[in-house]
């Protein structure tokens, strides 16, 4: 009993700090789990700007075209899009399988914006917009699902730890009273 009281007195500071640290980790995980939605929202915004019917993008001046040179063939851009989509999906699935909790959606936003730019420069955005949109939506949705399930699992574990901590505290405090 005496040993229990000592360890309870020593753990008076530790449980509170541990609980705070646990709550802080839960807050960080909750924030991380929203990143996927932000990525999707930004991608939707970029897509609305790139939408051919919106006519938001300016015409590229001739002198800029002369400076940049000829656009790459549309077929090559499409092949690059297929290869990129395939490799991105494989990498995300491998991260899901390995339990890696990192979010890589920001780099995908950059790549997808580049594809919009290439097709726009090649004057082929009209017929290929929905291909980029479908690829981006699939990749970013999968990233969001991955990070959301990862965070949910870890939040659940942290909450279980906090419950265990609360039970220990309750046991020690009832022992002290006796």
């Amino acid at each position: 009993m005496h040993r229990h009281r000592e360890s309870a007195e020593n753990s008076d500071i530790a449980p509170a700090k541990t609980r705070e640290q646990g709550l802080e980790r839960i807050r960080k995980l909750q924030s991380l789990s929203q990143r996927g939605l932000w990525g999707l929202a930004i991608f939707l915004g970029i897509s609305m700007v790139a939408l051919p019917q919106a006519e938001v993008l300016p015409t590229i001046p001739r002198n800029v075209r002369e400076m940049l040179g000829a656009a790459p063939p549309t077929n090559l851009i499409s092949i690059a899009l297929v290869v990129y989509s395939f490799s991105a999906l494989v990498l995300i699935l491998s991260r899901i399988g390995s339990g890696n909790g990192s979010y890589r959606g920001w780099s995908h936003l950059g790549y997808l914006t580049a594809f919009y730019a290439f097709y726009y420069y090649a004057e082929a955005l009209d017929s290929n917009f929905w291909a980029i949109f479908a690829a981006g939506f699939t990749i970013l949705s999968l990233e969001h699902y991955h990070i959301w399930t990862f965070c949910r699992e870890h939040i659940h574990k942290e909450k279980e730890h906090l419950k265990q901590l609360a039970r220990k505290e309750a046991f020690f405090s009832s022992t002290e009273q006796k």
Partner: protein
Amino acid sequence: MSILKNIAAKALVPVGLTVTGFVIVCSILLYSFVKQDMENDTIRREIQLADIIVKSTRYTMLKDDRESLRHTIQNIGEQEGVEHVRIFNKKGLIMFSAHPEEVNQIVDKESAGCIECHDGSEPATHLGEMEKARHFENNQGKEVLAITAPIYNEPSCFTGSCHVHTPEDKLLGTLDIGLSQEPLNASLNTLRNRLIVFCLMVMVLTVGGVSALLRRNVLMPVKQLVVFAEQLSEGKFDISAPEGTEELENLAKTFRHMARDRHESHQDLDRLQKQLEALSAEIRERESNQHGDKA
């Protein structure tokens, strides 16, 4: 049950999303490739048709038989799918047309079909195949693919007695023919609908296949295992273990051993508890007897 739903969701969502999304991307790009190829083929066929018309009317032009040329152009214009056909001279004046009201009208050099050659300070005399074509919607709301075919000056032209063409004139006029894109659009719509059906079938097969396999190999055995564990916890050890994969059968056997060991431990504990109570009662009795003797 929520755990089982979680396993199903974790297996179905990533696989379904990945396969369906990738197939949709490939289908859209395939449609785009096929559409581009079909449009290019249509343009080449229409250029060939325009060249045939120019060659067919060459003799009529050489003989300066304007009436025959007018009838020829009119007959071509009456063909199904031909939206417009006209010949204009190098000054842009429409000389012959399937629509008589257009004759003797001047065509704007900056309009589509003309700007491709007249964009620079010097008019171009040759255009690439695809540059001869232009897409637009006519007054009737129909999608039209129009081809501009030049009528070049040839030795028989500038040596003939009918027209006065100098050898320096490279171009005598232009044939402009527009054909309806409805047959092409109908084919593309059919292709698009077939690809949509294909994507839906892939999605159904993927989700359905994974669901069926998951249900058979994981969800049902796990459910049977849960029922088995519950019955073991109630002390029913004579029930048969669920069958399934080797891992699940081993797990079921382990559960049974654990449950039996626990049950035996409880029985030992009860027996020891009873012995302890009996000893305690005996000790108390002896103590009370000793107190009684001393008194």
